[in-house]
């Protein structure tokens, strides 16, 4: 039974108050943003400065969405407005509340863009990221064409802008994924409600994730699975299902003959050409995305959603070709950085999960909640996979395919996060199918249909509200859970600017931990020494001895670095003041000070 028929048999909901709920929710969000005091941020991060209006506003938006989602007929325009509202609340709050852009890496990327803009080329042998310069070059073009002084002006609002850019391809994926229309909308909202992974800052990966979504949206829109008698073969017995699964590797399937396209030839050829260009852009812009894309295209081919296997081969040639030719600066001499962790899945899992559950109790809480959110999503996705009757198992394979990457790369301890993110658009559509399963496909569901009776709409609406609001609240807490040390005050930015203004050629700027708005200037000419980034255990004694040994001309101490020590390393309160005193006894003097930052300058040899 289609969802429209199922809902039309139920009582009509009360009149359209969803937009009223949504607009009130946004108004309350504005109040919470105005009232938020960044300087009072606690160890749980952003959530500690958000008052009740934020949570009330979010709840109203989600309630409005749930009301509209189950309205007959479905009013897509209203659903879209409410989804955009939730995106603005979840991803715009940090940008609106915090005075400068979050995350050091975004500032470093602005520095890379500035270097390309000023020199017209990348800096050789400086940073691995320069071996995939496509995103930085595009950033330089953007800076040049808009007349901005630098890319720094683009940093603060990059997350909500990227998340809004993801929405069109996500809607296309949802529409052509084989789930129902309502499950598609729910899946799209769940994508945002569970996306705490924080890879939407000003970065090549954020841009390439957009490319990844566009390529897969186009493939899913272009090719649909052909009916190959699956209804007869997919009965119910596990043996039959396993036998049918073997069809994924037949010669006919891998040649693309089991996918059909309703598009005319010219449109398909144009799409293939544009997708090849996008894959070239991805190959030269990011280390990981091209390989995730290869796995996703392979999943599409095996599940009758890709009709031209040449696209997969071209993606592989471009990715490996760039690695071999363009990125040779990165791998020559240390290929083990790329392939050293092949097959070491348990080590990769350890560096991605267990090694992160450390630090103070607040930090461990945040990390535990992240694990809870993702685990909950996967449990729901599993239920959705068992409840739905699809025309192809493409969503299941697309959600699982990125995990193959973990067998090859730990990606500096971030591999699992990226893998979850690459599968997220499909995992969330499966999770939506746990509540609103499509039952019209030829592949029969594993679980029997649950009949909800006359109160079905109310039960479904309550389920949607609980599920979406629960994930939204978790994401609010955990996404901004590190902001006590990953978000920066204007004082800290002033300290960094002071250091750049007063450092002389040949001198080094020093910092205790990599939590400063630094890296946006003087790329390749002024080194930044970060004591906590050095090999070996990080204790207060090693930080002090590293700084004393390296003796940077200027050392920036700040609130964010102090918070990092207290929250992540479990140092006692006031540890940075003790360190500052020790450095001053060691020949440093205070050069300038702000409410949240101090710059020390070396005056003499101790």
């Amino acid at each position: 039974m289609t969802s429209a028929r199922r809902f039309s048999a139920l009582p009509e909901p009360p009149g359209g108050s969803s937009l009223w709920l949504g607009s009130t929710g946004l108004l309350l969000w504005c109040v919470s943003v105005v009232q938020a005091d960044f300087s009072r941020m606690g160890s749980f991060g952003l959530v500690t400065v958000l008052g009740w209006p934020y949570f009330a506003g979010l709840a109203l938006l989600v309630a409005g969405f749930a009301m509209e989602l189950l309205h007959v007929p479905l009013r897509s325009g209203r659903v879209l407005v409410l989804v955009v509202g939730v995106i603005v609340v979840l991803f715009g709050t940090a940008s609106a509340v915090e005075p400068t852009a979050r995350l050091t890496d975004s500032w470093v990327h602005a520095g890379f863009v500035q270097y390309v803009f000023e020199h017209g080329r990348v800096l050789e042998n400086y940073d691995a990221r320069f071996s995939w310069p496509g995103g930085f070059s595009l950033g330089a073009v953007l800076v040049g064409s808009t007349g901005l002084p630098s890319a720094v002006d683009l940093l603060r609002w990059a997350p909500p802008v990227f998340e809004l850019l993801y929405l069109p391809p996500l809607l296309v994926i949802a529409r052509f994924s084989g789930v129902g229309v309502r499950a598609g909308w729910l899946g799209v909202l769940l994508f945002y409600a569970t996306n705490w992974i924080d890879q939407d800052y000003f970065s090549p990966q954020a841009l390439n994730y957009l490319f990844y979504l566009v390529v897969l949206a186009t493939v899913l829109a272009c090719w649909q699975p052909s009916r190959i008698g699956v209804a007869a073969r997919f009965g119910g017995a596990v043996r039959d299902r396993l036998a049918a699964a073997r069809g994924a590797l037949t010669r006919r399937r891998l040649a693309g003959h089991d996918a059909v396209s309703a598009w005319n030839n010219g449109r398909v050829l144009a799409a293939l050409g544009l997708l090849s260009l996008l894959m070239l852009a991805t190959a030269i812009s990011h280390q990981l995305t091209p390989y995730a894309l290869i796995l996703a295209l392979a999943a599409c081919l095996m599940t009758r959603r890709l009709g031209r296997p040449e696209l997969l081969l071209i993606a592989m040639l471009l990715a490996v070709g760039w690695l071999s030719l363009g990125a040779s600066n990165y791998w020559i001499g240390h290929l083990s950085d790329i392939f050293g962790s092949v097959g070491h899945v348990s080590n990769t899992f350890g560096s991605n999960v267990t090694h992160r559950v450390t630090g103070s109790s607040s930090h461990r809480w945040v990390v535990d909640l992240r694990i809870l959110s993702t685990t909950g999503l996967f449990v729901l996705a599993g239920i959705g996979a068992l409840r739905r009757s699809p025309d192809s198992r493409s969503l299941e394979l697309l959600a699982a395919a990125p995990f193959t990457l973990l067998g090859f790369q730990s990606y500096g301890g971030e591999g699992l996060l990226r893998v979850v993110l690459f599968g997220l658009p499909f995992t969330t559509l499966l999770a939506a199918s746990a509540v609103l399963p499509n039952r019209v496909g030829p592949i029969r569901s594993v679980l029997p249909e649950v009949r909800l009776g006359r109160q079905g709409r109310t039960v479904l609406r309550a389920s949607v509200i609980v599920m979406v609001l629960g994930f939204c609240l978790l994401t609010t807490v955990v996404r901004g859970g590190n902001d006590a040390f990953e978000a920066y005050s204007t004082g800290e930015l002033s300290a960094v600017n002071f250091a750049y203004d007063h450092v002389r050629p040949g001198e080094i700027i020093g910092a205790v931990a990599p939590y400063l708005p630094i890296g946006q200037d003087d790329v390749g000419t002024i080194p930044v020494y970060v004591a906590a980034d050095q090999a070996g255990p990080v204790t207060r004694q090693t930080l002090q001895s590293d700084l004393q040994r390296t003796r940077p001309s200027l050392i920036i101490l700040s609130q964010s670095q102090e918070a990092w020590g207290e929250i992540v390393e479990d140092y006692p309160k006031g540890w940075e003041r003790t360190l500052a005193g020790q450095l001053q006894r060691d020949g440093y003097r205070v050069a300038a000070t702000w409410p949240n930052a101090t710059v020390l300058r070396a005056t003499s040899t101790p």
Partner: protein
Amino acid sequence: MVAADPIAAAPLTLAVLIASIVLLSVRAWLGVTGATVNRRSALVLNGLIVLFVAVFGVIVIVRFATLA
């Protein structure tokens, strides 16, 4: 033969890479348009694709092995 110098090896790799992509594009174009191709021509095209992709793979592996 592939030299130890990456610059010396690059033009060969690039040429094989471009040839592979061109051949794959031709195959995709023939497949989408449904152009009639006799069996022998199809075999030649597929054979060339396999050859060029294999050569590209060997060059990449040799480069990794010699320069890593």
